[in-house]
């Protein structure tokens, strides 16, 4: 049996397969169907300092091989989450990673600091890729200066392992990956959902009340794999690959491209047991290929002789 555990800087995960923020609630929702202790980790739905209601409905719409969502980060606030959900989560051995967000650097710092003393929280994931979180007119996820500022400030505020979740809608992901590394992130995760929209042509209204939303699911996988591959060439900190994973093969693409771990998102809605099927499939693959650990597979993409080795080769 190959060793499935992986190391994300200071954080050890029992398996390389996490569940992605916002797609698995806070733990109890799927606990009747899935043994949480078999997960590589739970990344809980984004938490802010104060409770937030989120967007009007409709909040999701199905599109080709994907889902559009504009949930709007509703959450019970840090205090509410700690009280309502942490006692439940502490019953399990699964690593708990708290996805945090704020509207200003100060809010980010406050919520990060709040979790430093909470028993059972294993790491923080910094959600800087939510288009709404603004400081002035800058967006944390796509504006380099704000990005550096928020990562640096949160890094200084927490002793927990810090994962920075990158926005996909930038022209050069490598710059953001390097900046996260330079500012002290222990790992990066990517991708978050892709800004997108859909229109009901009969009513001429957006399918989401929020007009725009984020695209997730199999549709975004090739885009996500490319960004993970690029990021892996830019940094040495570990990467969590996310985007459209619904079977082991999909997860293996990310690992071969350079990810140390992966997270299953939308596919949990389609099939709650996806995370376990992916885990089993990775183990089976490693065994079949005589590999002793996930690390020995990581980044092993063979780009061959014919193949261009940089990312600037011709398409179309």
């Amino acid at each position: 049996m190959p060793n499935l555990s992986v190391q994300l800087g200071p954080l050890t995960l029992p398996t390389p397969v996490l569940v992605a923020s916002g797609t698995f609630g806070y733990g109890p929702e799927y606990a009747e169907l899935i043994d949480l202790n078999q997960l590589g980790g739970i990344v809980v739905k984004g938490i802010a300092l104060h409770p937030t209601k989120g967007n009007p409905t409709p909040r999701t719409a199905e599109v080709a091989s994907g889902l559009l969502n504009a949930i709007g980060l509703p959450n019970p606030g840090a205090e509410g989450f700690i009280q309502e959900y942490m006692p439940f989560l502490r019953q399990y051995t699964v690593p708990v990673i708290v996805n945090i967000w704020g509207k200003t650097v100060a809010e980010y710092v406050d919520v990060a600091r709040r979790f430093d003393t909470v028993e059972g929280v294993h790491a923080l994931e910094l959600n800087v890729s939510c288009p709404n979180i603004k400081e002035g007119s800058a967006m944390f996820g796509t504006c380099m200066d704000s990005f550096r500022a928020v990562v640096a400030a949160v890094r200084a505020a927490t002793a927990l392992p810090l994962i920075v979740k990158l926005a996909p809608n930038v022209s050069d992901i490598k710059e953001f990956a390097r900046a996260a590394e330079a500012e002290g992130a222990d790992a990066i995760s990517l991708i978050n959902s892709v800004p997108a929209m859909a229109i009901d042509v009969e009513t001429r209204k957006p399918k989401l009340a929020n007009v725009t939303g984020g695209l997730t699911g199999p549709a975004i996988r090739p885009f996500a794999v490319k960004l993970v591959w690029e990021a892996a060439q830019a940094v040495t900190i570990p990467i969590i690959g996310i985007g459209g994973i619904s079977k082991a093969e999909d997860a293996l693409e990310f690992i071969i491209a350079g990810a140390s771990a992966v997270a299953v998102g939308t596919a949990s809605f389609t099939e709650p047991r996806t995370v376990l099927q992916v885990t089993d499939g990775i183990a089976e693959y490693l065994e079949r290929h005589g590999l002793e650990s996930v690390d020995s597979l990581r980044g092993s993409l063979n780009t061959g002789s014919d193949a261009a080795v940089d990312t600037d080769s011709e398409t179309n």
Partner: protein
Amino acid sequence: MYCQTVQVADQSEFQGGYRLLTLDAPDIAPEVSPGQFVHVRIPHMEESVLRRPFSVYRTEGPQLQILYKGVGKGTRTMTYLRAGDELSLIGPLGNGFPAPQPGHFPVLVAGGYGMAALYLLARSAPQPGIAFFGGRSAPDILCVDEFESLGWEVRMTTQDGTRGRAGIVTDEIDDWWAVRSDSQPLEVYACGPNAMLEAVARRAMERDWQAWVSVDRNMGCGVGACLTCVLKVKQPDGEWAWKRSCKEGPVFDCRDILWEED
């Protein structure tokens, strides 16, 4: 709650465009209580990432039945299912209806698949009551015999007058209420289009009936994780909060819903 692969035992045409799907679901079927639903992964819809929710119409031993209509991509694809096909089911889901209390007179109000969604409740009620079914036209009125054979009185309204009274369901309710002599307190259970639910709720609040409505919201996960299916529910402090219709619902006390919403 289970997430299981189950087998299609049978699929047949029902009436008014509805189809009856019978599933062998020996773990799930016995645990379904009235008003609960199952979340179906429809086979051969590889482009679709979402399941589709359906109320459980009847359960009989290891089997459960769904009465559904082909309205969109998912339900139209379901029509291809044949005996022996497999599909994945999550369920039973949702809170379901509170059980009718002895000494209260049960009243059902339904439109569309709501007639199916209320059958288990009718079957488990301590006494039969009255059911008001409304639809556009005669074929839209479902399951009348099934309810009558349980001893329920069924009053029908159709917009085109092809079955029962011409008009909408609340016309008939109002008339019934106006001449009612029995003094048992009512317990009203409603499932149907949102406008019907709201009309019932307004009467219930005016006339002080206890009324529960089962709402229909787009769903993602079906288990409370994604926060797609929310609706506004009044809070004790005068504020409102989003509640998940898949978890805290789909059945709500009509007084709790912030009806302005839609």
